[in-house]
């Protein structure tokens, strides 16, 4: 597999989780380094910088959020966090604190691998320079600012266009409300999430075939939005 030369650092205190992840990741050709505590993880990351970090938020000793903060002081590569379902606030905090994505425990290996692929793809330099974005039937030509669905042009307002571009550039990755608001409206309106909801709704009416059962523009309830990757 193409992934097989990637180095993954797994920071997780639970041995059973480490064990099955080690097996699953190794089976896909990843090289895995493991740490059971935040301190050990930071040391390992400094020793030999990994291509991707999988970080559990509920660590003993220094807490996952702190590990993330200290890691982000110098580490630019993607970080995936593992969290429990009811910890929406923690997820948002981690995402706003520099995590690239999250996976909710318990998770399937397939889901994790997909997220890892997305994160690694976004981290690679050539991805940002594409002049055409396309997911499924949706296509944006950044040079001509033309949006089309299945070849039919879709008319968007400038704000909708900006939102869609942002989402598609990060396809497969969750974007928090706060991030989207900051990027689209500027740094002052990061709490007015209902504007964002209205825009997402109108955008869905324009690009989705059934806005009530969206295929592309997915809601991560309580966290933000994710544009389907493929």
């Amino acid at each position, binding site marked *: 597999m193409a992934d097989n030369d990637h180095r993954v650092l797994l920071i997780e205190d639970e041995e059973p989780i480490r064990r099955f992840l080690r097996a699953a990741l190794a089976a896909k050709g990843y090289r895995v380094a493991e740490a059971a505590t935040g301190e050990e993880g930071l040391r390992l990351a400094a020793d030999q910088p990994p291509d991707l970090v999988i970080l559990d938020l509920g660590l003993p000793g220094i807490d996952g959020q702190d590990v993330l903060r200290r890691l982000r002081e110098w580490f630019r590569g993607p970080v995936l966090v593992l969290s429990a*379902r*009811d910890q*929406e606030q923690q997820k948002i905090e981690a995402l706003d604190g520099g995590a690239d994505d999250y996976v909710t425990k*318990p998770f399937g290996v397939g889901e994790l691998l997909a997220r890892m692929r997305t994160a690694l793809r976004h981290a690679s330099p050539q991805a940002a320079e594409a002049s055409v974005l396309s997911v499924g039937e949706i296509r944006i030509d950044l040079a001509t600012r033309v949006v089309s669905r299945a070849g039919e042009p879709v008319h968007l*307002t*400038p*704000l909708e266009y*900006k939102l869609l571009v942002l989402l598609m550039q990060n396809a497969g990755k969750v974007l928090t409300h706060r991030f989207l608001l900051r*990027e*689209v*409206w*500027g740094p002052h*309106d990061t709490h*007015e*999430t*209902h*504007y964002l*909801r*209205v*825009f*997402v*709704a109108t955008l*869905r009416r324009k690009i989705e075939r*059934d*806005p*009530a*059962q*969206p295929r592309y523009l*997915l*809601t*991560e*309830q*309580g966290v933000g939005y994710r544009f389907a990757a493929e």
Partner: protein
Amino acid sequence: MAPDRPNPDELLAVLKAEESQSKKGKLKVFFGYAAGVGKTYAMLETARHAKESGREVVIGYVEPHGRKETEALLDGLESLPTRPVEYRGVVLQEFDVDAALARHPDVLLVDELAHTNADGSRHAKRWQDIVDLLDAGINVWTTLNVQHIESLNDVIGQITGITVRETVPDNVFELADDLELVDIAPEELLERLREGKVYVPSQAERALESFFQKSNLTALRELSLRQTARRVHTEVESARRQRSANVPWATSDRLLVCVGPSPTTARVIRTARQMAAALDAPWVAVCVEKTGIATDPAAKQRVVDHLRLAERLGAETVTLTGNDVAETILDFARTLNVTKIFVGKTHAPRWRRVLWKSVVEDLLDTSGEIDVYVIQGQEERRQAEPVPRAARHIQWRDSLAAGGVVVAGSLLAAWLHDLHVAEANIVMIFLAAVAFVAFRFGRIPAIQASVASVLIFDLFFVPPQFSLTVHDTQYLFTFAVMLAIGILISTLTARLQTQLESGRQRERRTIALYRLGKQLGGLTGDIFLLGAAGQHVREMVGGEVAIYLKGDGGNLVVMFGEDTSITKHALSGPTAHWVMTHDQMAGKGTDTLPSAIALFFPLGGSQGPLGAMGVRTEGTDWLLHPEHRQWLESCASQLALALERDRMTVAVGDARVKAEAEQVRSTLLSSVSHDLKTPLAAIAGASGSLLQSDSPTEETRRELLETISDEANRLNRLLENILQISRLDSGAVTPNKQWHLLEDIVGSALHRTRDALEQHSVTVQIAPVIPMICVDGLLLEQALVNLLENAARHTPAGTRIEIKSTLDGASLVISVADDGPGLVSGSEEKIFDRYYRGTPGADSGRGSGLGLAICRAIVKLHGGTITAATRPDRGAEFVIRLPLGDTLPPMSVAHLTSSTG
């Protein structure tokens, strides 16, 4: 401040230490008939024996009176230090009750039960100290002479001619668990006296000389022997009663003693008390407030003193109002089933007794089945109390006014006389004047007016004029009538007024008490109950009120009247504490902690003390009146009951909540243990077979792995549901409400359930008029997910699921319907219960039984409702109704169109 004033903090600490000792100590009394019989000696000797046999014996206070034999016995026994107290320039050594409580020995020796403590001590009397010691669980040995027993006091006074001031209430004497009679023959005692072996204080030598007569001593000895014998008899009786409950218990006597202002009443009370004790009968002291008598403050004070004496001797005291004393007493006696009435002999002059029947005679005539005992009273010497100046002043003014009225009448009479009006009519003028004075100014001015009228009439209108000689004897009759009418009217008026006044006051208090009860009945919460009661009492008393309540740590906390002078006074806290722990009144005007500035009443509930209420008035007189004290006690107990009821209600509520929680927990446990074990068993089994079989076929391997995966998912769902319902139940969830678009929430719910709904077709219809809704998106999504999963689970593959949303007035209606088999009839409500499973068929094991319960909890959290029904055509329908607020999210055009990027 006097140096011997007890330090409140120390007092409090000691009081607390006392409180911790719940077991009462035993009282042993070495009882003798006179000084010198050897009580102290006997007590010390017994103490030495006890010490030798290993008991912890400590001397609290022993007065050896300089006798060598006694002093020798003190050797080797631990003695507590005494407390020096300065009294009129002399330093006295007093028993230190606080030190004794702190030392807390097994047995404590305290000489002279009847001793009066120096000013500034905790209690006025030593017996009160001893009661405290007993309450603290210390066994006390003490000594007592027979003449100090309260009820025998006057009998002995009569015998010996010496009145003993230091007395011990009979019930304290009866507290003694053990009575040891120390007895020697009077001859021997006299011999010891001659030898100088009996301590005689020099200043009392002469008095004691007459006391130590053989006849006196023999009488006292007899009394002491009789007291001891009576106690032995009582003990035998009670033992007999304990052994067989069926032995007839003859007396059901109830005694009533009439209390009046007469100084002889005290003896009547003591006699009644003796009889009550002998019969083991309850007794009540009754005073009848009547005209004339009640207006005299000195007499009123005597009545109060007598009632207090009766109270001290263990009687219940009652004040009645009535015109006819005998009738009032008998009415009361009959309602109480009194069997014996005690009344003092009246000392009215013979002529009066011929004219009016005395109360005693009235009683004897009308008592019927009740025995009446007439007791020869004996006057107790007392200091003459000066009549208040103000009263005298008022009488002078009244007399002057009466003179004015008589003069006016005389002038009118003179004018009529000049008009030659008949003398009979002129007499009428004077009579009218006397009647008016009597009505307006009372008896004394009326008598003065009568005399003046008669003199003026005689001097100026009856021939010969200007002379007091009366020729016609008819006029003598006129004088008599005038005088009689004056006295009669004034008496009647005075009686009416006093009756009216006392009736009014009593009514006011009764109404106040009733109102208090009613008010407290409608309140809950300590603060409100205390506030209502405190204010009420303050209004009625016209003074200050402070209420202390026992806090969580057992400390007293001021709950009402924080800024009164009561709470600021250093002794108030300790007094309140004493009152609470002993469930007795104390403070100003009592014998316990009399230096406190307020009188404290216990708030005694049926489960134990709750606190104390302190009341302070301008003077102490108001508080000294037994009736007022009773009223305040009633208020305090009403408050205590209300507090207790309130706490009980809270406790019952808590208990019910706890019981319900317990019920839920046990249901959860029984259900969860099964639900958790099933998937675990499957996972363990499947993984076990995978590990054990050497070369499973691809098909078997895949099947086992799918089992593991499915069961793990199921376990996860179950755990999540359990966690969620317990979070919702515990109230830990506060909805994070934000403005949402319903279609967004429906969309994400469908996205989350896409795997479960793979085999079903879903349609969504959301009316375009639906505005943004302010909800917790995650929770509402969860509710929809649960409904969708529920639909997927209970309908066969290929079933259509419809999500519809419309507006109904101010409510948002979301319905999730399917065209599956529908609900089991009658289960529409039950399916929302925890661990209820809709179809008991093959699929029933797959749900957690919590999904719909979670739905309902979430909808409830948003103030909405959820219902389920079978649709008329086919399938089940779940309907959520959420109230829409009347506000809409703030929207600015700028935000919708412009971008800063």
